[in-house]
C-alpha cells in the first residue's frame, strides 16, 4: 500500500512537472520562430538601407535629409507653414491610416501616412527615425501577417576610431534596426556606413 502511494506521488509530481513544462516549451518554440523572423526582418531593412546613397545631411533629424517639406509635398501634403509637429500631425490626421512614418527626430511628433513609404527615400539619412507597425516593404505594402510587430531604424554619427556616438558629422553612420513584437524587442542588427566606403564600392 505504501509503495502504491509513493508511486502515485512520484507519477503525479512528474506529470505535473511535465504538463507545466509543455506550455513553456511551446512558448519557447514560438519565441524561437519569432526571433528568427525578427532577425530576418532586421537584416532585410539593413540590406535595403545599405543600398541607399550616403549623404552629408545630419543624422538624428528624421526626414530632414530629404527635406520633410519636399517629402510631404510629394505625397500631397502641403504644410504652408513652419512645419511644426502640430501641423504635421494635423496633416497626418487628415490623411488618416496607420503605416510607416517617423516617430523621432526634429519633427517634435510622429508622422505617419499611408502614402509615406521608403521608396521616397534618397539617402541613408532618410531612414533615421523610420518606424512601421506592422513592418512593411519598401513600397509601403504592409506585412499583414505580422500584425503587432514593429520595425524601427536609428541612424547616428559615429567616431570611426572608437565607434562611440558623435554629435557632429564624421563621415561614419551607425544604422540600427530594431524589431519588436508587442513591447518585446526580438532583434537588433547594426551596420556602419561611411561616405568613403560608399564612394569606393
Amino acid at each position, binding site marked *: 500500500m505504501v509503495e502504491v502511494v*509513493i508511486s502515485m506521488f512520484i507519477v503525479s509530481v512528474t506529470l505535473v512537472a511535465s504538463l507545466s513544462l509543455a506550455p513553456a516549451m511551446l512558448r*519557447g518554440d514560438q519565441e524561437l520562430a519569432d526571433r528568427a523572423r525578427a*532577425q530576418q526582418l532586421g537584416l532585410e531593412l539593413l540590406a535595403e538601407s545599405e543600398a541607399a546613397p550616403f549623404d552629408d545631411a545630419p543624422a538624428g533629424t528624421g526626414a530632414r535629409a530629404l527635406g520633410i517639406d519636399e517629402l510631404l509635398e510629394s505625397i500631397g501634403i502641403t504644410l504652408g507653414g513652419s512645419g511644426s509637429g502640430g501641423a504635421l500631425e494635423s496633416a497626418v490626421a487628415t490623411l488618416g491610416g496607420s503605416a510607416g512614418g517617423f516617430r523621432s527626430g526634429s519633427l517634435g511628433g510622429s508622422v505617419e501616412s499611408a502614402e509615406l513609404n521608403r521608396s521616397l527615400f534618397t539617402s541613408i539619412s532618410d531612414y533615421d527615425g523610420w518606424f512601421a507597425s506592422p513592418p512593411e516593404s519598401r513600397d509601403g505594402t504592409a506585412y499583414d501577417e505580422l500584425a503587432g510587430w514593429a520595425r524601427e531604424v536609428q541612424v547616428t554619427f559615429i567616431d570611426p576610431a572608437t*565607434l562611440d556616438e558623435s554629435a557632429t558629422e564624421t563621415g561614419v553612420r551607425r544604422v540600427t534596426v530594431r524589431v519588436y513584437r508587442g513591447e518585446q524587442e526580438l532583434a537588433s542588427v*547594426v*551596420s556602419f556606413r*561611411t561616405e*568613403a566606403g*560608399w564612394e*569606393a564600392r
Partner: protein
Amino acid sequence: MKHAHIRIYSANAETNRRLDARVGLGSVGDLRATSRRRRGNTYLMILGVVTLLTVTALAGVSVLRANRAAISLDGDVAQARVLAKSAMQMGVQMAVDDIDGWRATLGDGAWLDGVRVDQESTVSLFASDETDGDIADDRFDEVTLTAVGRVNSAVQSIEAVLEIDVGGYETMAASVFSDDEMEIETDSIDVESFLGSNDEVEEHGEDIDEFGEIRIDGSGDAVHVGPMSLEMPPPEIALDELEAIGTRMSVESFPGYQIKNTVLTEKSNQFGPVNPRGVYIIDCANKKFVIRDSLIRGTIVLINPGGGSEMRNNMHWEPLYPTDPALVVFGDHEFQLSDSDVVTASITGAYIHPDDEDWVDAHDDSTLTGFIYVDGDLKIKDHFRLVGAVVVGGEVRLEGDVVIENGPNYAESEVVGFRRANGLRFKRGAWRRVVR
C-alpha cells in the same frame, strides 16, 4: 496441462506441512514473498515510466536549447557578416580621412583591433600589401583588407582589395595654368582648353577672348577675374618618380651646356648612355642651359637650371610614351621658338641611331607635344606651338604668338610624376570570404 490442487487442512500442523509437501505447495511465508515480488515489479515499472517521462522531458528541453542556440548562432553569424562589411567601409573612411598620409600612419597590420561595437560584438580590420609587403612604399600599391566581425562565438571574415583611383591634377586640364600670377602680353593666343591661375591674371593684350577662354574662378564658361584654388602637383614627387625611371647626366656632358643641333631619343644620345624610356635627368648646377634646334623623342628633366635657361629656335619634341611628360624644369625657364619648319636642316652631322632615321625624316615640323611642367617661373616669348598642356609652379608670362591644342586630357591620365590618388575603390571581383 493444468492441475487443480485442493488443499485439505487438518488440525495438525505437521500433517498440513506433509500434505503441502506432497502436492508441491510452499508455505504461507512463500505466498507472502510472492506478493512482495509482484508489488516490487509494479514499483519498478512505475519508476521506469517516470524515468522515461523524465528523460523525454529533458530531451525536449535539450532540443529546445539546441534550437535556441542554433537560431541564436544563425543570427550572430548574420550580424557578424554585416559587421565585417562595415569594418571594410570604416577602413576606407580612415584612409580617405588622411588621404596624404594614411599609408604611413595606418601602415601594415591592424587598423581596427577588436573595437567593441556592443557587449557582444567587435570588429577588426587588417591591411597588407600583397605586392611587396609594404603599404607605405608606393602610393599606388593595392591594399588587401581583411575585416573580421565577431558576435559572441560567431566569427565572419571577408577580404577585399582596395585599389587606387589614379588620375592627374585638375590644373593639368588647362592649356596653361600657373600657381602664381599670369601675365598675358600678347594679342595672338589660341588655346583649345583654358588659361588659369591660382593667382591674379593681368591682360595687356587685346581681343584674347575670341581665341579661347580665360577661366579664373573655376566656373569654366565665362571670363572671370579672381583667384582659383586648384591643387598643384607636388614637385618632389615628380622628381622622385622621374629619377626612378630616368638616366642622370652631368651638365658637363653637354658642350656649351646646350642640347643643340642633335637628335636625342631612347636610342640616339651623343652625350652619354641611352635611357630605354628616353628619360634624361640633367643637373644644370645653376648653369644656363639651352635646348635648341633639335629633335627630341623622350623626356628631359632639368634640375637647378641657371638664369636664362631656355628652349629656342626650331624644335620638334615629343615624349616616347604619351604618359611621360615632355619637359620638366625644377627652376625658371623660357621658350623662344621659331615658326620655321626646318628642324632637320639643323641636325646635319648629328649622331642618329639607324632605327631613328625614318622618324627623323618624318618630323621636320617645329612642334612640341606633351605635358610640360615648370616648377619656377615661365616666360613664353614667341611662336610657341604645343599639343599638350603647361603647368607652372611660379609665375607665367605669355608673349608673342601662342597656340596650344589639346593633347590627351592629362587631368584624367597617369602622367609619370604627376599622378594623383584621386580616391580609393574596391577592386571588382576581389571580395571573398576567408577563415581567420
